[in-house]
């Protein structure tokens, strides 16, 4: 589905991510773990095309998309849920979904409905201004908005960071539901081991912008390996 080869990127004079190779297979959950500041968000921004590469390539379904603008990558099946429960704050929750659905006609409306089935609580909040929703509600809205694009690969950046505990399980349940069909690949970035190491087919640990460890998810040894790689 997604293949990163030698991805190198950064800001200004500093290089933050150094030659990262990573593969997200079709229909699988792949996790990237790393401490605060390891370069996880930077890596994801490069995957989306929000940050230009200094070296390396991003391949989507075998096609090189390194030079494509982010919105064109979205058209090819990547959806992105950025860190920090981002929404179009002045738009209503409904408009946050509509603005994406507009581009897809009938399919957009159908996928909006499906996304709302995943997070039924959002249905009562559609008229509210998105910026005034709680963090958990905004994160659910962000995931729903990403799903409206009809993705084949969902990229999630610390989806439960700063979310109230009762919503955390709802979000993880939704991710599990999405991956269970096997149609959707997920690239999940986390600071914490829990869900990611348990559910990922494969995971990688990012330290100072380099992949320091790779492992298979599930099983008790996976968590131990990851913990060691993260030096916890």
């Amino acid at each position, binding site marked *: 589905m997604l293949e990163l080869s030698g991805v190198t990127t950064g800001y200004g004079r500093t290089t933050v991510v150094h030659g990262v190779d990573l593969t997200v297979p079709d229909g699988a959950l792949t996790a990237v773990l790393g401490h605060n500041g390891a370069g996880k968000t930077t890596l994801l921004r490069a995957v989306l095309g929000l940050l230009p590469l200094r070296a390396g390539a991003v391949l989507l379904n075998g096609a090189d998309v390194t030079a494509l*603008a982010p919105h064109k990558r979205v058209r090819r099946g990547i959806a992105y849920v950025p860190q920090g429960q*981002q*929404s*179009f*704050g002045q738009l209503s929750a409904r408009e946050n979904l509509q*603005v994406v659905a507009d581009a897809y006609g009938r399919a957009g409306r159908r996928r909006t409905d499906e996304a709302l089935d995943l997070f039924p609580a959002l249905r009562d909040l559609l008229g509210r201004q998105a910026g005034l929703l709680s963090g958990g509600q905004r994160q659910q809205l962000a995931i729903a*908005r990403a799903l409206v694009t009809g993705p084949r690969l969902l990229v999630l950046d610390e989806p439960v960071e700063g979310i109230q505990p009762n919503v955390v399980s709802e979000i993880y349940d939704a991710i599990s539901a999405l991956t269970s069909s096997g149609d959707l690949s997920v690239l999940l970035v986390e600071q914490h081991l829990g869900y990611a190491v348990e559910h990922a087919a494969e995971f990688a640990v990012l330290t100072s912008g380099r992949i320091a460890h790779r492992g298979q998810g599930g099983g008790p040894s996976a968590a131990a390996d990851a913990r060691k790689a993260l030096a916890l």
Partner: protein
Amino acid sequence: MDIIAQLFAGLSLGSVLLLAALGLSLTFGQMGVINMAHGEFMMAGAYTAFVVQGVVGDAGVSLLLALPLGFVVGGLLGLLLEATLIHRMYRRPLDTLLVTWGVALVLQQVARDVFGAPNVDVRAPAWLSGAVEIGGLALPRTRLFILALAAVCVVALALALRATPLGRRIRAVVQNRDLAEASGISSRTTDRVTFFIGSGLAGIAGVALTLLGSIGPTLGTNYIVDAFLVVVAGGIGQVKGTVIAATALGLMQAFFEYSTTASVAKVLVFVAVVAFLQLRPQGLVSVRTRSLA
């Protein structure tokens, strides 16, 4: 009675300011750049009315043709400027200010070369000549027409922003460009369309100005500063704020003019706006959100 006359003068001036500022507010809000050539897009709209009248003859028909044509002419100039210069200077306000000021001077010179330096007149249609008498007060029909035109433009823009897919995209890009891109929205295309519409509104404003007096190559310079005062005082990119600020500035100007002179009034209005911005730097209407995004 005097008060009502002043009130009308103020509202009328406010409607002119509003037409000048509406498009500017849109482009300023979208790109975070100051387009000094906005006034020259108005000038281009005014000359469009002049040219159309030269071709069509009938003042009424030519006015009704010039309004959409002025929109297109202003819009195309804006599109050209955005595609060639402004998008390269995205979020570099100072550079954009200087470059678009240069473009403004060039456009003035082009107008001088094409139409000559002296002012020219565009005839107002017969149905806009004279005044409507209300309670002993004579309200010029041209002024009433401009008030109505400003109202139509505001409502059309507000509706377009609020209830159309394009409007949603524009608001989304203004609020979070990266998130919009990452949600499948082309921010470049959205920028261009926004610039077309904002600059087109300047063209319409220019056509309207031909009803108030003769027009010349420097027409735009008379309005650009006031238009900026309105945009900044109203809160950047906010239609509601722009409407309130334009009305308030028009009324202030009219009332100050009544008690002093036009140029003193201008200074007083300027001081009032600066003082207001000290108290409320974000302008009249600002954004309420929990998150920054």
